[in-house]
């Protein structure tokens, strides 16, 4: 397996599309910092309004998150599809590696590419907002643990999505198929899922007490007074949209600050872990039995 990873990393380094997209992703992160800086308003000396705080910079970076995740999806799909379309995956099989082993390495490479992409994207916003422009205050630090938990939760959804696109890319065996599945998973899929969930929830709200719930939601927004609270709240709204395909138990308008959201998180984690296990094990066994081009 070590040798397979070595090959994959060498291949990734030479994939020009991956390098171009990595630069774009990194630049998108920088764009958020720039936007925040341009739109800043100084209320009192050294005190900035809502538009220029560490949380707003990070928050705005998540607003562009969908583009970034789509780009990561494209890189992973292309990376996998190229190996199949050029026939180089055959070299691995003939060299005496099992198809299951090859499949696992491809899936894990997708996860690594995703994590690398996320790190690249958040590099500039994190450095500029937290370390240089607006250091984290004591108040912000109070919710750091929650922030990290929710970050992991959100990224878990992305990783599930990437694994699903990788599996589909391996099944489709063509570059075009891989790209189409990426678009379906990361663009059309979440939009449709969110739409369906919203309609169902609206129907339920009409039946029960929609106004109470909505008021609670708005109140939760108004009550946010910590950078990290604000960030993870909005981030999760964004990521939940992207990952709504794998986020079956979380309502679209959930208040992540209320105590009862923990149940949702565990359910979603459970769903995702089940899906990841299925994709890795059942998908791998299925791949091992399938014919390659």
């Amino acid at each position, binding site marked *: 397996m070590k040798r397979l990873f070595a090959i994959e990393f060498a*291949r990734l380094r030479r994939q020009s599309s991956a390098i171009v997209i990595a630069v774009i992703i990194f630049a998108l992160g920088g764009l958020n910092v720039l936007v925040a800086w341009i739109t800043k308003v100084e209320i009192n000396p050294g005190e900035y309004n809502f538009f220029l705080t560490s949380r707003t910079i990070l928050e705005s970076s998540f607003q562009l998150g969908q583009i970034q995740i789509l780009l990561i999806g494209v890189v992973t799909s292309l990376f996998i599809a190229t190996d199949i379309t050029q026939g180089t995956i*055959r*070299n691995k099989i*003939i*060299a005496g590696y099992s198809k299951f082993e090859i499949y696992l390495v491809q899936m894990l490479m997708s996860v690594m590419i995703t994590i690398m992409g996320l790190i690249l994207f958040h590099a500039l916003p994190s450095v500029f907002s937290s370390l240089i422009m607006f250091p984290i205050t004591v108040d912000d630090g109070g919710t750091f643990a929650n922030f990290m938990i929710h970050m992991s939760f959100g990224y878990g959804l992305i990783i599930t999505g990437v694994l699903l696109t990788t599996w589909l890319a391996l099944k489709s065996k063509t570059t075009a198929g891989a790209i189409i599945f990426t678009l379906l998973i990361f663009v059309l899929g979440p939009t449709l899922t969110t739409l369906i969930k919203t309609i169902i929830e609206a129907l339920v709200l009409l039946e029960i007490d929609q106004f109470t719930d909505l008021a609670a939601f708005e109140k939760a927004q108004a009550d946010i007074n910590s950078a990290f609270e604000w960030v993870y709240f909005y981030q999760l709204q964004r990521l939940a949209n992207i990952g709504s395909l794998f986020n079956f138990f979380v309502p679209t308008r959930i208040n992540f600050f209320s105590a009862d959201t923990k149940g949702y998180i565990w359910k979603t984690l459970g769903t995702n872990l089940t899906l990841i296990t299925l994709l890795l094990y059942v998908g791998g066994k299925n791949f091992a*039995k399938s014919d390659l081009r």
Partner: protein
Amino acid sequence: MEILKTIDLSKTYRKTKALDKVNLTIHQGDIYGFIGKNGAGKTTLIRVIAGIAEPTKGSFVLFDESTPMGIVRARKKMAAVVESPALHLNLSAYENLKLQCILLGIQADHQTVIQNVLKKVDLERLLVERKKKAKNFSLGMRQRLGIAMALISNPKFLVLDEPNNGLDPEGIRDLRQLLLKLNQEEGLTMLISSHMLTELSKLATRYGFIDHGKLLREISAEQLQRESRQATVLTLAASTLNVETLVKQGLNDFELNGTQLKIYGQQPIQPYLNALLKQNLELVHMNKESDDLEAFFMKMIGGK
């Protein structure tokens, strides 16, 4: 020792039987010429052995291994170029070979190994043009590089699917000499599928004929030689001789094609010469010939 033995190996694509209970045996040291029309099942069999496709039914034994994991292990001793060479097109020849060295876990100095293998396939110039990417190679160069990648691990069993594709006449000759050398000096066993039967006949020590997924027959080169139909070919000055004249004289195992009269087998040619004399037909040339591999193959599949 048997390197490969297939047992009722079958592969079905939807309703099409690409392989139908194929029982094929390749012994150590064989250069096995695998012959069949397009779509006969040659590539399918190679794909199954190489692990690219899974058999629908049946099994095979590779280097005495027959379990799925055993076969995966046994593949470390084989190399294959299936259909087109599997190259990383955005990498140079050197980088492609370097990756192959890593993949195969070759311990020796990669630079030396790569130099040697490029020399073998006459691609030494690529050591100078080190940055030239595989996507800019000609078809022949890609084919040679594919073979170099297969040879880099010093395999015991080499599988080549249409290895002469894209090669010029000089390249075909060089490849033949290389393969013969590897077979004779290193005892490399080979399975070669090719449409170029004349070329294959210069190499192969055994043949397997496949048609519509069925292995029609396996035969050694010596046996093929023995079974090939001998003929005496008479070239006449004019094409006035007609078939009826010869048939009336009780002659029937012949073929008349314009000025060329082919007399099959070991039958006496005197009756034919007499017939020519009666018609005052001048004999221009006479020679002996035997069926070539192509004719043998055509007879085998019932083609014309």
